[in-house]
């Protein structure tokens, strides 16, 4: 079956540009997560949705980062006025709830390079 898909796979942005990263979770998965992964590091939590509700955004590094999931399926992570330190792989994951929420299915990620 189809897994989690993300687009674009690669994005190069000039410093100061806005970017939008898309995530299509596995159909029927209620929970959706965004993580940021710097080179050589483990993923770091950014934010979490249950259906369309953003229940935890404690990991968003600044108010330049914004995520939405308006219809409880596709999600978009937006970064405004990108900075070089935003360069990373942005991973999206989805999971079922009720006991398996930590068994997260990850997409391939979007590699963002800010020049």
């Amino acid at each position, binding site marked *: 079956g189809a897994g989690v898909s993300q687009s674009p796979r690669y994005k190069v942005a000039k410093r100061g540009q806005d970017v939008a990263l898309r995530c299509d979770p596995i159909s029927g998965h209620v929970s959706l997560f965004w993580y940021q992964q710097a080179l050589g*590091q483990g*993923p*770091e939590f950014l934010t979490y949705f249950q259906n369309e509700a953003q229940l*935890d955004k404690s990991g968003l590094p600044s108010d330049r980062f914004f995520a939405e999931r308006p219809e409880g399926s596709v999600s978009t992570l937006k970064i405004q006025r990108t900075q070089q330190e935003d360069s990373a792989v942005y991973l999206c994951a989805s999971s079922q709830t009720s006991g398996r*929420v*930590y*068994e*997260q299915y990850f997409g*391939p*990620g979007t590699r963002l390079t800010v020049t």
Partner: protein
Amino acid sequence: GESVGLHLPTLSVQEGDNSIINCAYSNSASDYFIWYKQESGKGPQFIIDIRSNMDKRQGQRVTVLLNKTVKHLSLQIAATQPGDSAVYFCAEPPQYNQGGKLIFGQGTELSVKP
């Protein structure tokens, strides 16, 4: 605070040998751990999990051992194959968080020599 860390950043093994990847944690109240595998260019993939009421859990060619006394867990891979080459992360939920957030360790890169 909570942290999940790994002893070794890289591990090289011969094909067919067993691999052991280690992970230390700092929060004695941690009660659930997960191992993820990340191949180059891909997102992490769930391998196996273990709850703190268990000392050992086995999957297909993988075994996770949990030593709560020294706050250490390990992932053992039997008869390591080239397809096992990847970065392996241990992860745990933060204390008091039921939402699904995971804290990942730095990772160990496993390289399998043919």
